């Protein structure tokens, strides 16, 4: 049974239009969307084949049908070449005698022109499918700066990146991945900045992917990650062209996948989790403050519930007397242990968060009010949970939302740290922190150390990690870069 276009590579086209047509009809015999139009004009017989809904019919009529019925090809010996070069008005026409190429093109919105007496097929670019259009990405909103976001069309996305990097140094290489989807994947980079070793490694990993279909960037990301089972990201993803352009300017490689607005960037640094594109569009004082806040909130998001458990169940002597009395009073009547309370509330919080995301926007707000206020208040009054624990989990949840790129890590770390401290107290907490540090410091992205700058501890390496220094201090690109100098000396006059 046929699976992909490439499966027809051994079939050869012949000179008879009817036989070639029959061949293609047989291939698409169960596809009712395929359209076929026969034209007889100027003593020649043609057939147009295209997929309904994927072509621009106006363009097809004006640049293909109209010329065919009005212009006679000059060279009857090499009819396909003559039609392609001197009859058709289309901007892009390719000739092929390979059936797989023709099939792939017609499935991607091109029109095939078959000519009686020629074993070549003309592939005419008449793509005209509707796209969502450029809009601001929902999950990467900013207050100041460019607001355009990627679309599901890879070529449009490439154009958006190219508009920001008007240089011939910008390279785009195409690959096809997916046995059935045959998805187009573009590898983009700046030739003078990319590290050849990383580029080679990426291509090598992509070549090893053997999957039915690529419907999103994550299908690829999960298969080419350095640590497939780590909670932490080792590949970047964004829907914003400005972020991709900035990544390319730091020597990274972008992977634009057709059919998704999410673009992957590699290699990835751990500090990127705490960076926002807005950091570079706002004053560096506020950007630095926000970034420090994100680091603090990341730690607080998983440490606060476990620290609370340690303090109220293992080491109560560390708390002020008034505070421990107050907690004992507020906990009075709650039948569950603090650890069980915390885990239950985390699950409820995650359920509410997930439900809120999937709901329509208006309903999502109502859900958060009902979930957060009504259920929370009622649970405290019914002595199912204690008020301090509700505050702790809510605070930890809000802190987790500050670092959306680490939301998966935060969720799991919160539960793991809770489990460790529920059994081992402060020992468990420090054990967890030690293991977490070991995990973070061993992260690698395409062979590149994700936390190199943190280990190196030089002033230059810190300039864009914990704070965002002014541009005139950031003269060098990140360490993995081939060409490190980013800018010349800053001159005010």
């Amino acid at each position, binding site marked *: 049974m046929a699976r992909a276009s490439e499966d027809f590579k051994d079939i050869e086209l012949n000179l008879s239009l009817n036989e070639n047509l029959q061949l293609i009809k047989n291939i698409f015999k169960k596809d009712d969307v395929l359209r076929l139009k026969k034209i007889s004009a100027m003593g020649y017989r043609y057939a147009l084949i295209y997929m309904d809904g994927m072509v621009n019919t106006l363009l097809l009529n004006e640049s293909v049908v109209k010329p065919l019925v009005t212009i006679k090809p000059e060279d009857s010996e090499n009819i396909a070449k003559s039609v392609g070069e001197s009859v058709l008005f289309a901007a892009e026409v390719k000739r092929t005698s390979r059936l797989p190429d023709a099939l792939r093109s017609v499935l991607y919105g091109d029109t095939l022109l078959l000519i009686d007496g020629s074993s070549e097929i003309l592939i005419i670019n008449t793509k005209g499918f509707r796209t969502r259009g450029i809009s601001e990405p929902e999950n990467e909103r900013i207050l100041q700066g460019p607001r355009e976001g990627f679309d599901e069309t890879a070529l449009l996305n490439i154009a958006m990146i190219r508009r920001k990097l008007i240089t011939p140094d910008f390279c785009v290489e195409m690959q096809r991945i997916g046995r059935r989807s045959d998805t187009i994947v573009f590898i983009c980079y700046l030739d003078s900045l990319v590290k050849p070793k990383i580029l080679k490694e990426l291509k090598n990993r992509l070549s090893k992917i053997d999957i039915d279909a690529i419907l999103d960037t994550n299908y690829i990301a999960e298969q080419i990650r350095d640590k497939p089972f780590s909670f932490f990201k080792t590949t970047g993803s964004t829907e914003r062209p400005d972020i991709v352009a900035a990544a390319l300017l730091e020597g990274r490689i972008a992977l634009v996948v057709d059919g998704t607005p999410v673009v992957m960037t590699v290699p990835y640094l751990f500090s990127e989790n705490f960076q926002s594109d807005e950091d570079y569009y706002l004053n560096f004082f506020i950007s630095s403050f926000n970034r420090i806040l994100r680091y603090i909130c990341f730690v607080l998001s998983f440490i606060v519930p476990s620290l609370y*458990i340690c303090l*109220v*169940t*293992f*080491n*109560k*002597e560390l708390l002020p*007397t*008034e505070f*421990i*009395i*107050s*907690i*004992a*009073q*507020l*906990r*009075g*009547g*709650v039948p569950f*242990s*603090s*650890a069980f309370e915390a885990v239950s509330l985390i699950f409820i919080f995650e359920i509410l968060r997930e439900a809120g995301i999937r709901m329509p926007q208006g309903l999502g707000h109502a859900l958060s009010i009902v979930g957060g206020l009504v259920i929370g208040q009622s649970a405290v009054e019914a*002595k199912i949970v204690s008020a301090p624990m509700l505050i702790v989990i809510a605070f930890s949840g809000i802190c987790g939302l500050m670092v959306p790129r680490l939301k998966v890590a935060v969720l799991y770390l919160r539960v793991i740290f809770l489990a460790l401290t*529920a*059994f*081992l*107290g402060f*020992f*468990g907490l420090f*054990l967890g922190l030690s293991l977490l540090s070991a995990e973070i410091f061993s992260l690698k992205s395409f062979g590149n150390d994700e936390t190199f700058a943190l280990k190196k501890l030089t002033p230059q390496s810190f300039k864009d990690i914990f704070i965002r220094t002014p541009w005139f201090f950031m003269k060098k690109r990140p360490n993995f870069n081939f060409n490190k100098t980013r800018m010349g000396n800053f001159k005010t006059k």
Partner: protein
Amino acid sequence: MKRILAVFLILLNVLMLTGCNYPKESNMEYIVSALAIDNIYGSIELSAEIIAVNAEQKSENTNRIILSGKGQNLKKAFYELHKRLSKPLFLNHCATIVISDNFKRSDIKEILNYLSENKDITKSIRILSSENAKELISLKPVTSISMGYELPTALSQWKLYKENEFKNNFFQVMQKILEGQENILLPHFKTYKDGYIIDSVFNLR
């Protein structure tokens, strides 16, 4: 696999060497604010001022309970006291130990030695003396939620007035005892018309 096994063994060893506390919820223990130790005809009466936590009450209305246990020594007194309680005592927040002034120095040394072995007794806890220790902690506090927290505050106030500082926390007293110092001074409280005064200094000779 080898690495996982190595990490597991290291953790197991560390755990076995370190041990860990048994977790106790804050509402599942009695918070003790003061201990009073009296000598009644040769036997020891241990009284504890317990902050009774009631979920229905606001913190300013916290109740106090004074419970006692008697025994030939402090260990037995503690045992007798525990028998009367439904929850364990939480001594970490105990701020004051009042010792009756009719103990002999050797008895007090023995009591303090026993208490020093209890890891829940904070070493910064204040040690005071009184004619009747239980009576002192049974008084109604004026400025604090319990006498255990009020007495050290009163002592600090007295120190400011008299410009005289007692080195009377648990650690300092034990240090003096171990060094064999002759005079160990403790502030002496006396009950007076439903209140208390710091009337003199008790010398542990």
